[in-house]
């Protein structure tokens, strides 16, 4: 989230799309309700009329997987009706940049496409630069190769009628949505976009979010209170675990993992390749070296490139789908699972379960026996005698049986104190990880093999006992000035010469001095604007609204009094206001870069045109991997840049056999794979049955009555569930063709109090072109009565 939960109350219009916060992030509605009371509007766009829709002022339906068409139409609408925030666009975005002539777009393909590799050569989308490497601009925005004109041209194809023929949205509803949300383009108004996995879990997931970014930049909604793009995260610390690099492609603080490419062979090489000339990321080497100092301690020296070589370097995409593909092919021997249940939560879950039996050993750390740790049981449909996997199931303590911090969607790092001793013999994960390392360290102690060398280099000092001293861990994350041994006060002090350490640069400063872990801050006095600066700690630097420089006009004055966050104080010669400036506080508007609010980006301007993504600089509509219709916008049916795994591991269904669009979602009472909630009686009684929601029209066509047992099938498998026939699903009319859609919760499995078939047995093993996030939200299926 660029903004934060209580800031939602400041919005004039919340466009909720690809998320259902009333059901999945209910407390957000505390703030949205307050916004409504102040006259704010809620717009809900969803294939299904959800509880969020029921609280919305405007609702529009769309077929799953057509978000870019929907948003493209809105971009076109805003441009055509001139509802954009002109000055903001001209000053704060790259609308004025000229793009090189190499850039082209034809019939769904951008220039530079390599069909065999399903990859683009992104250099074909570069900006024109002058001799000094600075981009060439046309502030009038009229140059035909200016980003603005290219954008206009690209989305002129997304006229209302073309759009609704793809999305299936009733025209009247579509226009209402565009009108309502684009009205936030006026200075003094702010609109927010709230989304969740309904946006990202598509083969075009990243571009879906990009489309949000474009409209928010056009309407001047970034950096404003009640504005921004707000990803509602589904897990209590999925923000933190991402910040801390639990992904194959990221180290901590979003520093990319070095890979086995020649440029990354040395630290210098890596820095050269990965460090941009401008923007805050130009400091990347400081972050990386400080991280290496935190990880390898005294073993990270200038002579050994601060231990850079110890970092593992992969040479491929190791993401979830590929991980399970490797496991399926028998390439993996062992796996550690920390509170995760892919047999329910993974895509094409039947295959993921099969893959597990190829492991030699598996360590599962969990509060419960899950469908995953029990994959070998008869109950799971397995033959235990044929499965040789050794399973180590370690009981973990729950969140309040230990202490530590978590970072919520708003990037607020909040502390959880320990309320009670861990249940039974269960232990905090912190201790489990610590003890595993200690045991491994003991085994490697006297060895000097390359494998031993790497592991022995890891600096691991968190106190003497079995339970590590969490305070030492917290300090290590914050980082030290190694010359004085003092805690660092800000990431601005980080160095690339090995004299500072920091486990995660974006958190540097949360523990600025002895006894001052700011995640423990509990002063809830509103420091202005609902930003609560003394409650917890928000990375980076305790900023609550990202890009807040954009809330003021180029001269440093707020666009409007109501929406003031920070402003330039000419007397004090610095930025002041309700929030920590997301800007160098002493850079005056008239100074160089004084009007470039997006400080992380080289050039500081918002990217309407983004030449960095794998599947194009502008979002373009492609149909999902499995779709009931042909792509109406081009002859490219699916995202040309997605990687496709052929064969048994990822069977594809066709629309003749499987004519119905299927999607998955969550319910309020269950959480993710349900292992946390289906093992609780009160939640299990509230949502105790697996069901499939469908329209009355579809039910009639199939002879299905409400509460009937039905079977849903896809190319991957079939599941049984109750039919929930509802008015809240309506078939979509697409150029005279009726397309049905069904939806189902994906929380169920056979363990716990509330049991049911697993929806992910139906979903495909196909991922987004940039993130490889699986396309859970749009697949093809068919339904029939179970009897």
């Amino acid at each position, binding site marked *: 989230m660029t903004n934060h939960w209580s800031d939602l109350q400041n919005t004039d219009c919340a466009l909720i799309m690809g998320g259902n916060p*009333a*059901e999945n992030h*209910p*407390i957000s*509605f*505390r703030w949205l*309700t307050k916004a409504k009371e102040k006259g704010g509007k809620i717009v809900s766009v969803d294939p299904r*009329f*959800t*509880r*969020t*829709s*029921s*609280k919305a002022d405007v609702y529009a339906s769309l077929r799953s997987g057509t978000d870019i068409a929907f948003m493209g139409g809105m971009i076109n609408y805003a441009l055509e009706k001139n509802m954009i925030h002109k000055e903001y666009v001209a000053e704060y975005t790259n609308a004025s940049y000229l793009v090189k002539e190499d850039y082209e777009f034809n019939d769904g393909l951008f220039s530079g496409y390599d069909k065999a590799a399903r990859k683009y050569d992104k250099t074909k989308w570069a900006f024109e630069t002058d001799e000094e490497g600075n981009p060439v601009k046309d502030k009038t925005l009229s140059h035909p190769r200016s980003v603005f004109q290219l954008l206009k041209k690209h989305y002129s194809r997304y006229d209302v009628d073309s759009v609704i023929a793809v999305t299936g949205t009733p025209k009247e509803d579509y226009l209402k949505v565009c009108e309502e949300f684009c009205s936030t383009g006026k200075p003094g108004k702010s609109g927010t976009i709230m989304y969740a996995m309904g946006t990202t879990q598509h083969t075009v997931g990243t571009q879906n979010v990009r489309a949000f970014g474009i409209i928010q930049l056009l309407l001047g909604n970034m950096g404003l209170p009640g504005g921004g793009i707000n990803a509602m995260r589904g897990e209590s610390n999925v923000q933190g675990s991402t910040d801390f690099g639990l992904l194959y492609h990221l180290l901590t603080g979003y520093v990319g993992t070095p890979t086995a490419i020649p440029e990354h062979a040395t630290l210098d090489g890596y820095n050269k390749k990965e460090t941009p000339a401008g923007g805050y990321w130009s400091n990347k080497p400081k972050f990386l070296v400080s991280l290496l100092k935190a990880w390898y301690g005294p073993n990270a020296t200038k002579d050994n490139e601060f231990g850079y070589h110890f970092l593992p370097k992969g040479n491929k995409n190791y993401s979830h789908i590929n991980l399970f593909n490797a496991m399926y092919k028998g390439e993996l021997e062992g796996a550690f699972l920390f509170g995760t249940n892919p047999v329910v939560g993974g895509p094409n879950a039947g295959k993921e379960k099969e893959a597990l039996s190829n492991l030699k050993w598996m360590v599962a750390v969990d509060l419960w026996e899950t469908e995953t740790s029990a994959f070998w049981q008869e109950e799971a449909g397995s033959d235990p005698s044929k499965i040789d996997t050794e399973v180590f199931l370690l009981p973990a303590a729950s969140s309040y049986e230990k202490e530590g911090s978590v970072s919520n969607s708003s990037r607020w790092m909040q502390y959880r104190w320990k309320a009670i001793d861990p249940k039974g013999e269960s232990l905090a994960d912190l201790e489990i990880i610590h003890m595993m390392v200690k045991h491994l360290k003991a085994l490697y102690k006297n060895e000097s093999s390359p494998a031993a060398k790497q592991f022995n280099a890891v600096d691991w000092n968190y106190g003497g006992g079995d339970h590590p001293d969490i305070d030492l861990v917290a300090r290590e994350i914050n980082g030290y000035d190694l010359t004085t041994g003092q805690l660092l006060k800000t990431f601005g002090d980080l160095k690339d010469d090995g004299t500072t350490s920091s486990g995660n640069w974006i958190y540097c400063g949360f523990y600025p001095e002895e006894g001052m872990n700011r995640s423990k801050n509990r002063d809830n006095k509103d420091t202005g604007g609902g930003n609560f600066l003394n409650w917890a700690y928000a990375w980076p630097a305790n900023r609550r609204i990202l890009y807040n420089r954009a809330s003021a006009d180029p001269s440093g004055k707020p666009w409007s009094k109501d929406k003031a966050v920070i402003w330039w104080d000419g007397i004090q010669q610095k930025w002041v206001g309700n929030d920590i400036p997301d800007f160098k506080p002493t850079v005056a508007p008239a100074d160089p870069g004084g009007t470039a609010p997006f400080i992380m980006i080289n050039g500081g301007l918002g990217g309407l045109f983004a030449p960095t993504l794998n599947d194009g600089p502008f979002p373009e509509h492609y149909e999902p991997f499995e779709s009931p219709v042909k792509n109406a916008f081009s002859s490219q049916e699916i995202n040309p840049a997605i990687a496709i795994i052929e064969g048994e591991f990822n069977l594809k269904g066709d629309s003749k056999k499987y004519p119905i669009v299927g999607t998955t979602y969550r*319910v*309020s*009472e269950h959480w993710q794979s349900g292992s946390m909630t289906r093992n609780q*009686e*009160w*939640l*299990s*009684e*509230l*949502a*105790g*049955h697996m*069901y499939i929601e469908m329209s009355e029209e579809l039910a009639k066509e199939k002879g299905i009555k*409400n*509460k009937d047992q039905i079977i849903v099938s896809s190319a991957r498998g079939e599941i049984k569930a*109750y039919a*929930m*026939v*509802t*008015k*809240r699903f309506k078939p979509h009319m697409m150029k005279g063709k009726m397309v049905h859609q069904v939806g189902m919760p994906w929380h169920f499995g056979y363990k716990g*109090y*509330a049991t049911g078939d697993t929806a992910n047995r139906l979903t495909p093993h196909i991922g987004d072109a940039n993130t490889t996030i699986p396309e859970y939200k749009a697949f093809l299926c068919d339904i029939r009565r179970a009897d």
Partner: protein
Amino acid sequence: MAEYIKYVDVTKCDGCRACMVACKNWNDLPAEPEEFQGSVQSHAKVTANTWNVLSFIEHEDSKGNLDYLFRHSSCFHCSEAACVKVCPENAMHYTDFGTVNVDSDKCVGCGYCVQNCPFDVVQLATYKDKNGKEYKKAQKCTMCVDRLEEGMQPACVTTCHTDAMEFGTKEEMLKKAEKRLSEIKDKYPNAMIYNPEGVGGTHTIYVLAEKPSVYGLPEKPKVPTSAVVWKDYAQPIGKMMLGATSMALVGAFVSNKLFNKEGKGHEEEGGGSHE
């Protein structure tokens, strides 16, 4: 003491059901899973161990617009409560807050309250004693009277994130309801305040977006006539009759003794040798 009521603005509710579990959590009530209801609703209605149920209603208004309505349903705490009226043991009673509660020590589990509640709220819970013997007690929402006594609000109200529920003095809450009603009349022309007269007003009042029947509520609930006939007429008359008959017999006995000593006043006809 001032009267307190729970005010439920269903138009603010987003159906999260925190109220349902907050209630179970505070009152330590067991789970009682039910069959699939055909909607996301968990229980058909409130029960002895599920004191509030969130109902989910798909409703199409006269213009054909779809609305998804939610209602937190629990005990209404009637001012003239049928359950209190029919309770033979005075177990059902009014508290100082004006709410209606069951005194479990007094309740004998007869179920009269169950049958007479105009809102179908009160139910019997079955318990087992140490010896495994089953016994029953009427159970329902207590408005968290134990919390009220400590100055805290009911658990369901405290947890409600949209402030769809509030607890306060009757006067203040009614004022809020009136204000809210005027705000939503445009969007919901059928909106109304539900505080039925037939039971003397309630201590859980609603602002409803639609007519009560849409929410499965009686349009004009009242204390059942039968309960009035029974408790206000039949039973007192019955008791009087029992008294009168007894008195008559006592009178007869006494007068027999007085007027009929030694067989006098008795006709000797008929061959009976009456004393």
